[in-house]
């Protein structure tokens, strides 16, 4: 094992997707490894399956052909979700893939061997591997072992974090990370709590500490209607970011509805805001917000 010397006692973790040819999670062609589990509950989350740290059953009803294979396979007669023991028999018998288990335990070796399949593409495009989630730092030991392994293979590493972790864990992995994608959402504490279900003090403090020890950070800000899409909030965000040498780039990510259909799939309640319908921000508005950041000297792009 190449990374044997850095192996930690916990070399397995819960992964819910390996996305190849990922173009928007760092430079070049990347494979994004999605680690399961996140303390936040942002209502606009486009990966609701990332929140729960444990595997769960997903049901895509549009694929279901009502063949009843799952009913016959379930020893308990298809219990409601709360009673499901996640044996996976229903999903393995399902012929269409309408039922599937999201999230599986993988070793560092499993992840490395899968990701390295695209090594040639990384090398030819200046890409690499990105760890996202969920909050990847909610599995800090696994993440650290993965980062060490990829470093030993000379693969460029990105960590897409919301900063929702204890500072020690963040600073411990930082030397193994080539680029941080650091998500900031809102400076106003009350709004942040309301929109995400978590306090933002730790996030801001972590950014402060990270930018003193690391030198390559991209800030990513979702522009969410009714949450942070006003000049005052953007001004506050820009001030929080401006002047940090480590921050190379700011990305404004317009709210979009790719989450549509996802909560139902995981038996989750549709967030109230989503139900009432939200219009994605207009291009002029985004351009205006970008200007606020640029006025503070930040290199800023929309999308990505």
């Amino acid at each position, binding site marked *: 094992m190449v990374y044997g010397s850095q192996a930690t006692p916990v070399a397995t973790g819960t992964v819910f997707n390996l*996305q*190849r*040819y*990922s*173009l*928007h*999670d760092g*430079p*070049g*062609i990347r494979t*994004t490894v999605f680690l399961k589990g996140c303390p936040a509950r942002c209502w606009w989350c486009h990966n609701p399956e990332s929140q729960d740290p444990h595997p769960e059953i997903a049901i895509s009803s549009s694929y279901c*052909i009502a*063949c009843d*294979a799952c009913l016959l396979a379930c020893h308990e007669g298809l219990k409601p979700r709360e009673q499901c023991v996640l044996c996976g028999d229903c999903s393995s018998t399902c*012929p*269409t*893939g309408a039922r599937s288990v999201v999230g599986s335990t993988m070793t560092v070796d499993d992840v490395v061997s899968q990701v390295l*399949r*695209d090594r*040639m*593409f990384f*090398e*030819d*495009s*200046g*890409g690499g591997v990105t760890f996202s989630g969920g909050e990847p730092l909610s599995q800090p030991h696994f993440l650290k072992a993965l980062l060490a392994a990829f470093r030993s293979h000379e693969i460029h590493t990105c960590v897409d974090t919301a900063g929702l972790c204890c500072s020690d864990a963040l600073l411990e992995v930082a030397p193994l990370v080539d680029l941080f994608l650091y998500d900031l959402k809102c400076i106003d504490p009350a709004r942040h709590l309301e929109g995400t279900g978590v306090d933002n003090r730790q996030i801001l403090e972590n950014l402060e500490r990270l930018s003193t020890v690391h030198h390559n950070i991209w800030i990513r800000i979702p522009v969410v209607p009714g949450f942070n899409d006003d000049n005052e909030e953007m001004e506050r965000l820009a001030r929080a970011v401006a002047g940090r040498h480590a921050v190379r780039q700011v990305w404004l990510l317009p709210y979009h509805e790719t989450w549509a259909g996802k909560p139902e799939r995981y038996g989750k309640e549709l967030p109230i805001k989503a139900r009432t319908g939200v219009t994605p921000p207009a291009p002029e508005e985004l351009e205006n917000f970008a200007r606020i950041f640029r006025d503070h000297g930040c290199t800023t792009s929309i*999308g*990505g």
Partner: protein
Amino acid sequence: MTGRTSRLREESLAAEPAISAERAILLTEFYRENEGRWSVPVLRAKSFYYLCEKKTIYLGEGELIVGERGPAPKLVPTYPELTCHSVEDLKILNSRPKTSYRVDDACLAAYADTVIPYWSGRSLREKIFEALPAEWHQAYRLGIFTEFMEQRAPGHTVLDDKIYQKGMLDFKKDIARSLADLDFENDPLAYDKAEELKAMDISCDAVVLFAERHAKLAESTAAATSDPVRKRELMKIAANCRWVPAHAPTDFWEALQSYWFCHLAVITELNGWDAFSPGHLDQHLISFFERGLAEGTLSREGARELLECFFVKFNNHPSPPKVGVTAAESGTYTDFANINLGGLLPDGSDGSNEVSHLLLDIIDEMHLLQPSSNIQLSRKSPDAFLKHTLRVVRKGYGFPSIFNADSVVEEQLRQGKTLVDARAGGCSGCVEVGAFGKEAYILTGYFNLVKLLELALHDGLDPASGEQLGPHTGDPASFTSFDQLFEAFRQQLAHFIGIKIRGNRLIEMIYTRLMPAPFLSVLTDDCISRGIDYNAGGARYNNSFIQGVGIGSITDALSAIAQLVYDEGQFSLSELAAVLDRNFASDEPLRQRLLHKTHKYGNDDDYADDIMRRVFDAFFNEVDGKPNTKEGVYRIEMLPTTCHVYFGSVTGATSDGRLSGTPLSEGISPVQGADRNGPTAVIRSAGKMDHIRSGGTLLNLKFSPGMLAGEGGIDALAGLVRSYFKMDGHHVQFNVVNVQTLRRAQERPSEHRDLIVRVAGYSDYFCDLSTALQNEIIERTEHTAL
């Protein structure tokens, strides 16, 4: 585009393809008078001379490059000496919903009164069909293979740089030298060679005469023109036509006009497959371009306008009309002329230059159906060249397609060509590799790899017809291992490759004896020095090809059986065969399982990909190295044109979950919708094939425009291409459209007439495609990035 080229382009797009009976009538007159008077090559050459002397010539308003194959743009001649269309055929061509050709009453009458009475029973197609044995006819009729040469001549040929250094008068000197060198004492074939060389000499005169007629027309038009600017242009056109192709061109304009006369001559002499192509046009033109700029006789804008006029000329020439199965395997107006950009110079250095970039701009701006275009990307090609190409590709016309110049060289070295000839070669048609100007590389027909499994599952019986089509390879109930099933499949494969190759040899001999192509022979080394015709093995290299279709489908079908029948024991092979015979009626859950829960090619899954390699090897081993009649051998290619739709229509349900009659996978692309892990996984799977042992493979990737947005999208795509080519991948092309656009185009074709999509080895107007093919393109996986 200038006002002139924009107007010429519009006129070309608006003109409706129609059949012209002129060539058929002239040829009939000539044959009625002269058949039997001379040797076959001389008769062919004199008939070609007669056409060049008599055919209506055309000089369009504002044109800078002149000459048409028919009496006017998009008027398409016929070749009754090869295929004599019946009145019924012509009526079908006139009325069929897709790729129709207008046929007027005068044309119908000429056919009924003049052409058919003479050629009926004399056409080559009838002679070929009569000579082929019953086993060949049965396999052809039931959809095992198609036959390229039954209504179009061997072609697939590309020009090298020779006409930029020599004119017809120089070739005549070469011919005279070769005639003088004939050894009538010791060479028993000297008399045949003398006749062939005389024929070549006549064909050179014919082309010079054809050009001279255009010179006169340009002069008389100039005399009647009051506009002094146009008058000057017409006088230059006249001077061009008087100088080339008789002599080597001296400037950029002459170079293009010289090629165009050679192009017209080749496609007038016979209707060879894939028309004719200029090959490495950028490499051929660069010295004329640079000299013109240096001397002040050419401007960049002037060069651009000439090239635009040149492009319109290709678009004026729809493919000769095909009928029957051949129309189904290649249902398109495009005639596959294909321009190569970049590549390598004979000394192995990078071949891209300023003209390459100029041509990319023109391809982008004109986006015409014809000519097709491709880049030859080598390790040495600059990223700027690749990225310029990808910015054009991103527009979604489906071209240029992208080839791996280093693999193209290596494939040819494996075939025994010299390094210099291999570097001067490239790709034409869809994806086919050849040594330009030195090779007859002949595609002989598509081969249905998938139907062979259907036969293996029925002990050689064809379930659709109830006929015993293949050999008895055993009752599937007796196959106790996957290897036994694979062996039955392999025996079916060997049986039909045998039938195909034996039939091919017979057809080759018929062309050798009855249908020489003396003018094409002048342009192909070493026909002159050997005194042997292009169709008789006179070329330096003579590879023949059989094109495998459906490798994705056959891989997935075999993989599902290996997994569910032999690994997991879920059901027996006989039970599965019975389900397929019922076309999954009342077995939808099983079909869904086959679709979604088995190993599939295109996902970087070694289980399936190993089976793909096994099928490829079996096909390769049966074909590669078998001799043809021209001192060359048979080789394989993996491309479908539109034949995956036709082969699908004659193939029953398959164990990958495919319903009876629906299209097979195309090229070496995965089954439509079977690839779930994105483009890098598709490329990794395709990269496991040994492309170097083929004569060309075709990989289609479809992207939504959003994926390619920004420089990041271009950079990623460039990385994708470079990586595939490091794996020795031969070719990749991109469809950049979204599904909604295609659906809208299907509903309202009149509003989307200009929508070009990549079909197989070429792009076509979406609205001209059959509904089945349109649906198939819509279904091809739309790769979506997060």
